[in-house]
């Protein structure tokens, strides 16, 4: 499948010869034929890429609608259509998909909100205040993202075991415990994104509000945050997606089947018996992916803006 793209590449280089002097001596008509050929090549690349990108997703949607009960029977795309797998998905107490889904939503939303809040507070102080240690703080935040929490998963496991002895509500096998661990990563690249965006909000707005008697907290909550809604959405979404995808820490901290997240639950479900569980897993995958994909495309404009702002800066 990879070869499609490479074929297209070689076509294109053939059409665009490197020795430009000879190209220049050619007559005008060949110039226009060259661009037409180039355009055809671009269509070929675009179509090939789209097919490769969409194929696995079409496949899983098709498998989820195919009632033939195994991985083997899911080969023909959309050969059979039925909602049986979706009904089975919510029907088995051994694999409480509904609970996993709700757990993931709760953990994802709370973590995203916490990340926006903690990161926003820090970004505000970096953007609007000048203090010793500011540069050091910014550098630290930039470097911290190089060391993801999963590197310290053993220490986190032992730490949460210890915390659980004092506060059982925060210990192993609790959602609150998992969320506070995730919030440990709240100051990171997200803060940096927000910092960059806050810097683009003119300080004259702050000054005007100050003259009207607004305090720093009021300026932050009612002016800066409101004017930065797009970047807050991006950071919230990136954090949400990150949490939904997080596997290592969730798998180590959550052991009770009904407390698991989608990533851990679905993986263990499918690794028990890959072939037999495949159609039901496919249905679960479609439902699990739906909110993330919808959110992503709803906020796509902002995400692309946020990513490129970080890149071009």
């Amino acid at each position, binding site marked *: 499948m*990879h070869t499609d793209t490479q074929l297209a*590449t070689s076509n294109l280089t053939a059409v665009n*010869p490197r020795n430009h002097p000879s190209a220049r001596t050619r007559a005008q008509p060949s110039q226009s034929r060259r661009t037409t050929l180039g355009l055809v090549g671009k269509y070929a690349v*675009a179509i090939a890429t789209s097919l490769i990108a969409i194929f696995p997703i079409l496949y899983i949607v098709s498998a989820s609608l195919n009632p033939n009960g195994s*991985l083997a029977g899911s080969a023909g795309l959309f050969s059979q259509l039925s909602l049986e797998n979706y009904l089975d998905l919510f029907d088995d107490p051994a694999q409480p998909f509904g609970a996993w889904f709700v757990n993931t939503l709760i953990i994802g939303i709370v973590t995203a909100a916490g990340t926006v809040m903690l990161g926003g507070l*820090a970004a505000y102080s970096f953007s609007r205040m000048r203090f010793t240690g500011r540069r050091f703080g910014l550098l630290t935040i930039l470097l911290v993202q190089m060391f993801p929490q999963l590197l*310290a998963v053993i220490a986190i496991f*032992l730490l949460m075991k210890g915390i659980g002895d004092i506060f059982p509500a925060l210990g192993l096998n609790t959602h609150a415990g998992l969320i506070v661990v995730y919030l440990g990563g709240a100051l990171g690249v997200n803060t940096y994104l927000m910092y960059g965006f806050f810097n683009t909000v003119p300080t004259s707005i702050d000054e005007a509000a100050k003259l009207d008697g607004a305090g720093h907290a009021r300026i932050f909550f009612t002016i800066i945050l409101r004017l930065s809604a797009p970047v807050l959405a991006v950071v919230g979404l990136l954090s949400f997606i990150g949490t939904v995808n997080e596997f290592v820490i969730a798998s180590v901290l959550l052991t009770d089947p009904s407390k698991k997240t989608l990533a851990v639950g679905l993986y263990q479900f499918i690794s028990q018996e890959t072939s037999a569980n495949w159609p039901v897993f496919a249905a679960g995958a479609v439902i699990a992916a739906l909110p993330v994909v919808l959110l992503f495309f709803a906020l796509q404009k902002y995400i692309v803006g946020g990513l490129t702002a970080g890149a071009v800066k």
Partner: protein
Amino acid sequence: MTTATTPEADSTAVQPPRPNRRRAFSAATPSIRATMIKIVSLGLLDALAFYAAFVLTFNSEWVLAGGVVVTAVVINVIYLKRGWLPAKYLIPGTIFLLIFQVYAIVYSGYVAFTNYGDGHIGSKESAIEALIDKSLVRVPESPAYGLVIVERLGQLSFLVTDPEGEALLGSDEQPLRPVADAEFAGDRAIAVDGYTTLDFSEMIADQTRIAAMSVPLTDDPNDGALRTPDGSQAFVYAATMQYDENADTFVDIATGTVYEDTGEGAFVGPDGTELMPGWKIDVGLQNFIDAFTEESIRQPLLAVMIWTFVFAGFSVAATFAVGVFLAVMLNDERLKFRRTFRVLAILPYAFPVFLSAIIWSGMLNPEYGIINQVLFGGADIPWLTDPMLAKVSILTVSLWLGYPYMFLVATGALQSIPHEYVEAARVDGASPWAIFRHVKLPLLMVSMAPLLIASFAFNFNNFNLIYLLTRGGPQDITTDMNVGATDILITLVYKVAFGETGGRDFGLASAFSIIIFVMVAIISVVSFRRTKALEELN
């Protein structure tokens, strides 16, 4: 922690009519509500801190208790004192960062210098107790003690009547002692003041706990203990392993073998057998030395390291190449449905990664997967089970997952390249390839270099892709270690620490994470230096 030269302090200087701006700040309109929120949150925090400090003190964890108190005091001071504004905003995120990231990494560093893991969890004292407990066997022909189980505050105890008819009470922690005020039914003690006697159904409910109890006869655990097979009679069990406190050795009474503490966190016999459980000790650099000298670890570790670099390097290079190529191709306004193509092209980025990895593992399944069944007409290509092909599969899926990100970023960066540059090159007669190679690509690199480094660091630890697609497999059968052909360092850490096969070895796994940590640190410092990305910070 910080000296504040804040903007509002500056404005105080420019505005003499208002003597204290900061006061005006906190006294602004919602002041009562804000103050209430502040007081309530600080109160809640203090209550939690007080409780934590109390429990920690109760458990004799003095250092931690002190830490909690000091942290709570610092937080209170920062929020109640005027000024120190940056600290007020930085504290919440920093606390989480310090506990769950910085402390966790430092603690990993500590664990890497211990033998922490299965069989080496607790202290030496608890290991000795556990060893004696484990070696208990019923003394042949020993008399039966009449028994009832009594309970107080959730704690179970034995109330026994010894062969002489005297009532004795004891629990796991408390050796047997005579009780004077026991209530008898016939010659059997059946109740004692302050304790509730369990009835039959309660005993059934608690039977696993009761079966696990062993009540020492005296203060010396070597004297043996009472255990019960059925909850109505207790028998004397004696340890077959005697602990000699003066010599610090264990002696197997049946064989006479002496087990010594040789400083390796366990009692070791003359033939090298270790008594388990052992205990946790500091082993210094032993884990690191093992990792690089012991053949059974070094060989696989080296292979895993090389593959980690190949995987991360290839992933970055391939996704960058494909992403930039697509961005150039689709950046043509004459292309119809350009928007649709773009949305389709970034679809893999919108789809949750953990699901993509599992879906690909199903698609690449050699027997039933759609790739073999449909695309290769029923072939039997071992995509995930052949060491070489599994690596190819991983790299391909990694490219599928990663190119949309590069495509998005490169599209943005391409569009921000001033049109005049391209135009000028074209006027000079440069071919499209030359324009790309000598004008666009260098400009792209300027903005994308930091992202390439970040992407490398990300892929270096791309646990999800590897573990969910192949589990690191196929398994390498030439070594005892639980390691496979596609394992990268981080999946190896996970397997060594939490793997289902073999004992969990937190110490060795932490040593591996420290190795990753050092590698990533070196790579990022060196490459950030070169891109000068950090110099833009002011």
